[in-house]
């Protein structure tokens, strides 16, 4: 075990020594994207293990160690980490935990603290917990996000979004079963390899590589008819993406003969950066902060534009929307100041889906999710008024909610989808 060093508030630090000797365990949310992000961290000398476990005992462990009324994602993420620690697979004196922290008025900013409490409860408070955040919370001598790291993570995120977006359009129609997944896996591997050689990360290189990816996916043989009902997935970020959180929702939709449409992570990142700009606009504050956030926002938006343009090189693919489109769509529904959790972005994504012909939507949320009372369930009525043919179902995820109940509701939505002419 490395020497344990604490900061003045008593928080256990992740030291340089730990960086050398320890393996950091991290939860998974988006399989493709997180694989690439993991690789980026490894490039900077961290040893990372991404957890892909998904058995029932994760929930049990979570229930044991976390206040049961805490949101489901916290329960799962913490359950998964603690379970991994207890699995015997790792030397508990040589591991640290990596967890993201969003900052902001939602409970999610507290996951890291709940994780520490859980470790304490399990008698393992000597395990350091590292926060990954862009808000300057909790620094550690052995862990830092330099501008370069952030840019590389951003690249990984963009590639990940692109691959998922293309896969979702190919997979339901592929003639040879599994061919889309093969392509996705190939590209993930190839990109990881490129990252390792320091390639594919500059803006120009990224554009070329993305065009290549699009070109390659367009070669997947698919049926000519695009007749499956398209079903959008929006929601609280973890249950929206993580198969562990949503009981494999994307796969379920595919099995039910639908084409899942899942807005990417990039918009969420831009949204979180944009919140800082908006705060200054709404309440006043430091102009410098706004300036810095503005630069960062424009940088990612630039990458996003590159991604959209790459997709547009093949008319067979529907391009994704841009953050600026979402900003326009939300006007008259929610204020830009609605920023906790997924905030106005969630409703904007529903609007965008409807506007681009995906009128069937699953709105996912952990049971009792606070922001989603407003931006998810709270906006469905209004959307239904404005777009009577929209077909939205809100699904709660929770340790006690059974899959059968969730699937039954989704099936009802799909049955209605079948009655309407498929969009676009």
């Amino acid at each position, binding site marked *: 075990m490395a020497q344990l060093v604490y900061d003045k508030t008593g928080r256990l630090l992740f030291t340089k020594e730990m960086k050398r000797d320890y393996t950091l365990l991290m939860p998974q949310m988006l399989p493709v994207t997180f694989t690439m992000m993991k690789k980026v961290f490894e490039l900077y000398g961290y040893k990372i293990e991404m957890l892909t476990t998904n058995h029932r005992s994760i929930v049990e462990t979570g*229930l044991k160690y976390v206040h049961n009324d805490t949101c489901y994602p916290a329960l799962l993420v913490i359950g998964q980490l603690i379970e991994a620690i207890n699995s015997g697979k790792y030397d508990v004196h040589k591991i640290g935990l990596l967890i993201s922290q969003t900052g902001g008025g939602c409970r999610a900013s507290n996951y890291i603290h709940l994780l520490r409490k859980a470790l304490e409860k399990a008698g393992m408070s000597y395990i350091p917990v590292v926060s990954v955040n862009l808000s300057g919370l909790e620094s550690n001598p052995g862990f830092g996000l330099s501008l370069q790291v952030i840019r590389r993570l951003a690249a990984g995120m963009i590639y990940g979004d692109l691959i998922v977006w293309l896969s979702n359009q190919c997979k339901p129609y592929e003639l040879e079963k599994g061919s889309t997944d093969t392509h996705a896996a190939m590209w993930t591997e190839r990109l990881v390899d490129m990252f390792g050689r320091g390639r594919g990360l500059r803006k120009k290189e990224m554009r070329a590589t993305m065009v290549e990816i699009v070109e390659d996916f367009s070669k997947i043989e698919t049926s000519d008819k695009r007749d499956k009902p398209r079903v959008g997935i929006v929601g609280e970020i973890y249950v929206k993406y993580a198969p562990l959180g949503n009981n494999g929702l994307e796969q379920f939709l595919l099995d039910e003969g639908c084409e899942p449409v899942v807005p990417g992570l990039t918009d969420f990142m831009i949204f979180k950066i944009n919140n800082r700009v908006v705060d200054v606009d709404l*309440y*006043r504050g430091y102009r410098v902060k706004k300036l810095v956030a503005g630069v960062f926002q424009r940088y990612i938006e630039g990458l996003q534009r590159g991604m959209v343009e790459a997709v547009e090189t093949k008319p067979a693919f529907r391009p994704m929307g841009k953050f600026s489109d979402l900003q326009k769509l939300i006007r008259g529904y929610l204020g830009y100041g609605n920023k906790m959790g997924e905030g106005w972005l969630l409703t904007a994504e529903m609007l965008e889906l409807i506007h681009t012909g995906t009128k069937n939507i699953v709105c996912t949320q952990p049971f009792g999710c606070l922001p989603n009372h*407003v931006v998810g369930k709270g906006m469905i009525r209004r959307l239904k008024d404005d777009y009577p043919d929209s077909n939205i179902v809100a699904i709660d995820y*929770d340790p006690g909610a059974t899959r059968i109940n969730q699937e039954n509701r989704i*099936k009802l939505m799909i049955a209605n989808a079948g009655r309407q002419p498929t969009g676009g």
Partner: protein
Amino acid sequence: MRIGIDIGSTTVKTVVLSDTDEVLFRAYERHYSLVRQKAAEQLRRASALFSGGQHAVPAITGSAGLGVAKASGLPFVQEVYATAAVVRERLPDADAVIELGGEDAKIIFFGGGLEERMNGTCAGGTGAFIDQMATLLDVTVPQLDELSLRHEKIYPIASRCGVFAKSDIQPILNQGGKKEDVAASIFQAVVDQTVAGLAQGRELTGKLVFLGGPLTFLKGLRERFIASLELDDEHAIFPFDAECFAAIGAAMCANGKDAEPFTDIMDKLESAVDESGGESAIEPLFRTQEEYEAFARRHAAAAPPTADAETYAGDAYLGIDAGSTTTKLVLITAEGSILYTYYGNNKGNPVSIILEQLQTIYDRFGSAVSIKGSAVTGYGEELIKNAFNLDMGIVETMAHLRAARHFTPAVDFIIDIGGQDVKCFKIRNGAVDSIMLNEACSSGCGSFIETFAVALGYKIGDFAKLGLFAGAPSDLGSRCTVFMNSSVKQAQKDGATVEAISAGLSISIVKNAIYKVIRAASADELGRSIVVQGGTFLNDAVLRAFEREIGAEVTRPAISELMGAYGAAWTAIDAAGGASHAEGGTGPNVERSPTLLSSEELKNFTHEARPVSCGGCTNNCSMTVNTFDGGRRFISGNRCSKPLGAGASSEPNLMKHKYGKLRSMEGSGSGTGERGRVGIPLGLNMFENLPFWFEFFTKLNFEVVLSRESSRQLYILGQRTIPSDTVCYPAKLMHGQIESLLEADADAIFLPCMPYNFNEGISDNSYNCPVVAYYPELLAANIPGVKKARFLIPYFGLHKKRGFIRKSAEYFNKEFGIPANETKKAAKSAYKAYAEFTSEIESVADGYIEHARREGKHILVVAGRPYHSDPEVNHGIDELISSLGLVLITEDAIARRLGGEPRRVLNQWTYQARMYNAARYVLEHGDMQFVQLVSFGCGTDAITTDELRSILESGGKLYTQLKIDDINNLGAVRIRLRSLIAAIGG
């Protein structure tokens, strides 16, 4: 021909349709969890129709039908979709369909955009709920229906979820409410649930079609729907075949698919019958008979001393535990030997049970035994005490502790799982230290197993035994009963046996208690000497599951189910023996009164319970006036001491003071009011910010109009537009508050979006919670009325004063053309007024503290949110506290007396930060105690509760949590407060 099979949570329906949609065959039966077998059996009965080898198109529907469809390869039609299809065909002019099933509730709207809705994962008010309620009242469902038709009044019963309703009904019954009224109230709760939970802003008008079993068979339920929705015969349609509509719809939807021979369909269904799924990894409870016997022997050792009741002569003591579902009674000798016991369902009328039992005791023991003391505990404590003139009433926790000590003197942890509730408490230094009661959402308790046993066609005892040797218990999760219902459904779908389900239920209840109520990670956390008790632990499967789960052996007294009564009897012994008695130190609230009614007096015993509405204030509480022979009288259901007449204690109460102050902030203040009337809903953070906005608007010469005082009626007024049924009650009330302002016809309604709160320098950030921050936007999107009104919901941040002054000047110039300078002046003045208000509250608190110290009273710091001062939100807890002789101050009045301090959680919400500081302040003052008010559904309190507990426990103080919702029942609150008082020796 077409075949439709509807497999629901409790029933199977099969229909065969001709090609002209004529129903040729129909069957409707309960499946008792034998889902596939029953479906196949019904279909087999229709085989005569196909004797000529005809082909048919099949379709399966229903909530439990999905699994069968998958296993058999038969097509599946979603049931709401199926129902919509048949209604469209048969009743084309219908505007909406309301269908209630075993566990589901559905609404389908036609016309103007088809909408289909099903109840969410947290919603009970359905057939299974009605079954459960009937069991509670000890009547059959048809009897319940009949009773309801003779009702005189309707009690408000929480309508969100079955479990909630149950805990509302229990006290009404225990306090003497009439079954007729309760029955009708149950149906009304179902109606409210349907309207509130499902309609979600869309009006239920026009021609309504009612479907599903409960609405087909229950006249009383129909009546409540018709009355509530103000329907006439033409607009309320109850079709013949209503219970089979989904099956018919499935058959109709089966149209167009390829027909296949009947025998093929039959084969597919039957081959699916044998397939048994479910990979349960749970160990059996007992592997062998020997293992079980050793277990049984060990537990048999914990028994009270025996006495020969036939020959005993001498003194005796009576203990009664008038619990929520059951009544327990013991008569013991001064040494604690049992002479007589009774345990039974109170059948909704504990008074008559006790009367009968007392008569039995007098008849049986005659003059040989003289009852020297008597005590009663439990939900019905006060009613029984008053009815029979018992010596004393004691709080349940104290009674249980007294009894547990008898068996394990060093007991440091007690868990009691009864019919309705789980109670756990730790004992530290001889006092009840922390009490954990199941909050209304998780009462997966004894009565749940019982209801399930009955639903599956078993007696509870037999059902529980089935689980003991089940090879692979079902994994049913650990949450509230409604969730458990769906877990059981899933298990049935997977082909689990009744044995496996029985064992699974026992395990679930235990997990629920340990992880949901106690929230322990291991047995070490509970204590070294654990006593388990309560009727549910008589069930060996539960006991075994408990020991297995915590990995330790525990003591279960042989009189597990009688422990409350036994403890009460012991307390009576202690009291009779005086304070010097060795084990007596539990300090019950001894109230000397005339002794127990004698045998003679019982002969003239009469009891009449009359429901009344208290007119003491605007709350109009529903109360029950119990009158007994000889003029004894007991009022129950009251929230304050007003109806009890003069002489009732009432200490200073800061909540009440604050509320009064806020309500007075109406009108034009120091201004002229010439700019118009601004409506402000007094709810959520307006309880914090009204002093600010009142000054702001009156300074600008607006007249301020406040929303009506909150009440249940106000809630119902806005209920229809609540889109998320799991949001907290204070937020739900906002809908009614806005409606009341629309009625008041204000020129504008003002409710800013405020993600940030004032920064008081005691936290890492100064957020409001997401619901407070953005609820205005939700209201704007969901209340149809505000679309025509001027509803102002700007984003404002009072935490940045200069920014606000500038931004508000811009905003009010744009909205009302007010010159910027004028607004800026008003804003500055508003900051001042807010500061004055907070310091006034602080100095009033000082006065109260002084008063308490002068009079030697305990001070109770009630920590929550500003909006917990709303009497409809706190349900009069503040009044209850002051009537118990405690001086009440609120967290905000003392929070700013300390600076910030690092916390183990992210301390980022202003209101929550105040609670941490208040708890720290309480640690510094010996005469202060702390309770936290938590609104059900409050996500941020999932974080604060653990933190507050650890702050308080670090300084040796008790942590008490009072969870509140729309439930208007202070029973559990009273237990907690009285236990707290007993523990601090007040």
